[in-house]
């Protein structure tokens, strides 16, 4: 009997062991044609729909009980793959998905979960590079930031600018990452174009709220841009020749399936086009050349040591430059030859680089270690040389002045992904940044007879600061319907013997109402230790990053959001969200202050205050099918309050738009032609304009002698003040609403297969119906000399043509 009990016990125990055993399926998911990793791909089991998503490096891990499964691997724009797996041990898979060629190729898997519905992440949008390339663009220049500005909750600021104003936040509150490296100035040409070359980009994600704990350092948004790794399979290239810029991208394997590279370069030739125009408009001075150009280069090498180890090195460099050069000009006077040469330029640009190592420790633990460098600087240079030649000899005088300013970061970080079970996705890590702030230094080089050789540097000392953060988050599946992400982000900042720190809780949750509906909510606290001194009107290179100080504290924000997410098959997705956000320690320039001139003592030019923003967003998108695109609507309010501005009264933020609508559509007309259109509408932004005028004191009118019949404009010896100035009164900041902004852009693309590849002509029109949208206002005079409110508009109807090719 005893023996029977023991045998029964061991039999039951073995059965129990067998049924309790769990194994992990892990590996990478990639593009079958190029080897590019697919970020955020959907991996789930048919039937019980247990699943996960691939991380930023294409890694996935799914722990299940032993048994037989059909595992579905799917990604938008790709044919799904189903793998039959008999899970009796740990499995490693490399999944390669083929891109779908046409609508016929798209296979919709019944009952497949929409990642957007199932994810705990809300207030986040992934936008595909293919979509970005199809959106009609200003002057034909495809632009990542311009595409982001078409999403709900995101304002563009002024016409054509590349600023991002997300849910009422300022342009300095966006963490813009390029392969994990912060980019400090993402603008070319005053913000009309961004520094991101779409040909080099793999993935773009915008997070507006519900920030996971792994992000920090900025208070309003995260724009995470990943560069392509380079085609591992074959050499290929692409390029385009546009109205103002051309680009070329080359990528391919160095060692097939092991090492790849990608290089993408872009340059504008505005200077070459404008030169004859400037000469025609100007006085025909053949000695002076002036112009503007920008260029940028992205380069990346990717090496796969094994399935568990990969190394990436990526570099970005870009530069803008305005220049005016006067060639040596000589003239003879009274036997002496005088010559003069001068050069001046204004240049700005970024350099970023990242060295990253991916390591897979086990089937459940993955890490990324990065060393990054980021540098933004701008400089103004002026050089003159005067030479005098006569019988006595040759003398020369050189004057050179260079003003430099910027910010530089060295950073190191480690991020871990740990998936111990199907219902836990744990992330944790640490980050350290060494900042060098360069508020401004002037380098003088003078060579003449009086001073000899002078080479000196004047200006503010560099400011050094350390910033670090640690975080941990867990995406937990609590039950079949409820999933939540709990996280903590702790950060600290040390500068000039001052230490700031903050513990920031982050929570987001998703409740599945059904397989296609979910209810989501989130709370996030963010802290930002650096500020951007910027002009609110236009992105200029003189925008300067400065650290928090003992006078100017770090910015903080808190945001709660509530929303629903609904998927209709795999084709449509709807999200409706409401949010409320508060911001503290915001900075604004004081009355009369301007970023022009020196940034010396910038703390005295700004005031600290608070802001708050709330509203709702509706986003309906169709990612698959003949017609793709989206409709976005935002209803929002954004206000500010500063004790020392506007007499302490609340005033609307400049980019407080009550209603904002965007419609983006793309569809093929036939086999060769594609059509795309975007229409945007926004109610007027808030402007500050004078409302009344009256006589008052004037420092200009207290000098000189002049008279007028309507006097009193006499100012004689002994009469100190005449109150002759005409002053304009401003009621309050941002109290006048501009006219509504709306614009239609269209483009037609015609592609043709050639022996060597594919050629595409893109013909586009920006502002089809030539709407004179407001750029800024001022009080002036109309054509009949009557006082009037004048609106200045910037971009009218602008056609463009771009020729692009792939081989």
């Amino acid at each position, binding site marked *: 009997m005893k023996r029977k009990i023991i045998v029964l016990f061991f039999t039951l125990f073995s059965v129990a062991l067998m049924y309790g055993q769990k194994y992990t399926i892990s590996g990478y998911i990639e593009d079958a044609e190029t080897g590019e990793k697919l970020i955020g791909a959907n991996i789930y089991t048919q039937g019980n729909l247990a699943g996960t998503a691939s991380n930023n490096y294409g890694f996935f891990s799914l722990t299940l009980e032993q048994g037989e499964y059909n595992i579905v691997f799917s990604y938008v724009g790709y044919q799904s793959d189903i793998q039959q797996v008999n899970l009796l041990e740990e499995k490693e898979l490399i999944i390669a998905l083929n891109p779908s060629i046409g609508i016929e190729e798209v296979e919709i898997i019944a009952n497949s979960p929409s990642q957007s519905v199932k994810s705990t992440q809300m207030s986040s949008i992934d936008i595909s590079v293919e979509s970005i390339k199809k959106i009609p663009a200003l002057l034909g220049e495809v632009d990542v930031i311009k595409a982001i500005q078409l999403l709900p909750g995101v304002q563009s600021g002024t016409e054509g600018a590349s600023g991002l104003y997300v849910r009422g936040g300022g342009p300095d509150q966006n963490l813009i990452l390029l392969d994990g490296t912060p980019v400090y100035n993402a603008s070319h040409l005053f913000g009309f174009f961004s520094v991101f070359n779409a040909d080099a980009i793999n993935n773009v994600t915008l997070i507006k709220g519900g920030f996971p704990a792994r992000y920090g350092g900025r208070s309003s948004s995260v724009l995470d841009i990943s560069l392509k790794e380079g085609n591992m399979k074959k050499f290929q290239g692409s390029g385009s020749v546009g109205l103002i810029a051309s680009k070329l991208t080359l990528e391919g394997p160095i060692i097939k399936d092991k090492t790849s590279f990608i290089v993408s370069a872009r340059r504008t030739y505005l200077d070459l086009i404008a030169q004859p125009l400037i000469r025609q408009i100007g006085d025909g001075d053949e000695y002076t050349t002036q112009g503007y150009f920008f260029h940028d280069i992205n380069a990346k090498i990717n090496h796969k040591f094994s399935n568990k180890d990969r190394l990436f090195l990526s570099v970005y460099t870009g530069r803008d430059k305005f220049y005016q050069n006067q060639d040596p000009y000589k003239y003879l006077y009274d036997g002496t030859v005088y010559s003069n040469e001068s050069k001046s330029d204004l240049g700005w640009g970024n350099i970023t680089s990242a060295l990253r190592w991916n390591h897979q420790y086990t089937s459940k633990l993955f890490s990324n270690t990065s060393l990054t460098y980021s540098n933004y600087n701008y400089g103004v240079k002026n050089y003159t040389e005067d030479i005098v030649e006569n019988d006595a000899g040759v003398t020369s005088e050189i004057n050179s002045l260079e003003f430099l300013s910027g910010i530089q970061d060295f950073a190191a970080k480690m991020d871990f992904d740990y998936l111990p079970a199907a219902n836990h996705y744990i992330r944790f890590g640490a980050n350290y940044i060494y900042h060098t702030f360069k508020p401004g230094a002037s380098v003088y080089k003078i060579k003449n007879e009086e001073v000899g050789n002078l080479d000196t540097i004047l200006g503010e000392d560099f400011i050094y600061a350390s910033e670090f953060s640690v975080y941990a988050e867990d995406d937990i599946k609590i039950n079949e319907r409820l999933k939540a992400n709990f996280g903590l982000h702790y950060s600290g900042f040390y500068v000039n013997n001052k230490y700031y720190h903050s513990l920031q809780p982050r929570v987001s949750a998703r409740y599945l109402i059904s397989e296609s509906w979910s209810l989501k909510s989130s709370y996030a606290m963010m802290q930002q230790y650096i500020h951007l001194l910027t002009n609110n009107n236009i992105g200029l290179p003189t925008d300067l990053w400065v650290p928090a100080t003992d006078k100017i504290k770090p910015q903080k924000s808190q945001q709660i959001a509530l929303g629903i997410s609904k998927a209709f098959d795999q084709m449509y997705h709807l999200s409706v969200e409401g949010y409320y956000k508060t911001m503290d320690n915001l900075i604004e320039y004081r009355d009369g202050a*301007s970023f022009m001139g020196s940034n010396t003592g910038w703390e005295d030019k700004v005031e600290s205050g608070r802001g708050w923003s709330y509203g709702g967003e509706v986003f309906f998108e169709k990612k698959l099918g003949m017609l793709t695109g989206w409709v976005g609507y935002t209803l929002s309010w954004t206000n500010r309050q500063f004790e020392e501005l506007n007499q302490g009264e609340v005033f609307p933020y400049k980019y407080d738009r009550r209603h904002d609508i965007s419609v983006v559509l793309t569809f093929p007309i036939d086999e060769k032609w594609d059509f795309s259109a975007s229409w945007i509408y926004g109610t007027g932004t808030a402007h500050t304009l004078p*409302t009344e005028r009256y006589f008052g004191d004037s*420092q200009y009118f207290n000098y000189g002698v002049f008279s007028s019949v309507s006097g*009193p404009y006499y100012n004689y010896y002994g009469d100190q003040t005449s109150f002759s100035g005409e002053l304009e009164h401003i009621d309050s900041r941002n109290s006048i609403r501009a006219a509504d902004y709306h614009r239609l852009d269209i483009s037609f693309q015609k592609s043709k297969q050639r022996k060597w590849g594919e050629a595409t002509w893109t013909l586009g029109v920006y502002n089809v119906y030539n709407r004179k949208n407001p750029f800024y206002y001022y009080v002036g005079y109309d054509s009949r000399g009557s006082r009037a409110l004048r609106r200045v508009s910037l971009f009218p109807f*602008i056609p463009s043509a771009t020729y692009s090719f792939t081989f």
Partner: protein
Amino acid sequence: MKNIYTILFSLVSIFLLNACETTEKIDDFPLRPSRLVVNSYFESDSIWKFQVSNSLSVLDNADLKIIDNASIRLFKGGEFLDTISEMDEDYWYRYTDHLPVQGERYSIEVSTPDFVSVIHAEDILPQAVPLSNVDVIVTDSSFNYERYYEWGTIQRGWVEGFFEITFLDPAMEENYYRMSLYSYDVDYDYVDSTIKHIYKRSVYYQVEDASIEDQFSSDDNLLFNDFLFDGQKYKIKLSFQEWDVFKGQEFYVELESLSRTGYLYKKSISEYENASGDPFSEPVRIYSNIENGFGIFAGLSRDQFVFTLD
């Protein structure tokens, strides 16, 4: 190549010609009714002077007018002094029976038959802060050209140097100052050279003082407070340069002691005028202590030092 340039030139021209200005009609742009404006600086032992005018909407094409039928009630420390209602030919309302006294608080009520609202304002006349010492160091000068008139010539040139100005700041009180440097230039009418014109000119100078340099708001308008040197004997060094000067020309160093009201007003005026024409600067709201109206009613005291160029 030529065709490409022609096409590109046409495209760019289309762009340039179409970017434009238009006249805007904003339905809810506030068209404010006219309000009373009173401007007055009052100094110790000096005649009271008031300018009364109107304000207009920025879109109103009428000229600003001087109001000639205003009634100004003057109070000292709350006690009624007198009513001023006579405007002189030079558009000032003047009052001489009681001159302002340092340390006293004054207030006004101004009304006219054309305006419903009565405007009020009050301010204190601050004590004068005398200049303890002014040293003038001329480092270089040259009178190397002449200006000719029917009756003779005047030699003119340029001068540069330093002013070192010392004053004692009163302790335990907030003091506000305005330093200005100016000269009176004399010239004669080109048609009838017996007619003399006198010009008040600002003198270009730079502040050689880091503690107040941040408050330096324009070339000739040094406005500052005593927060960094309260109760101390303070020395300011100004370097100056002036062109087209003549021997015997008078230079004035003036230290105005302002009330807080006067300081805020003059500072906002200075910021307003500096920002004027700069599309990137933040707008300035001009300070006013006039209730129900615009303008300024502020007391100030001053001390001067005169330097004659020889």
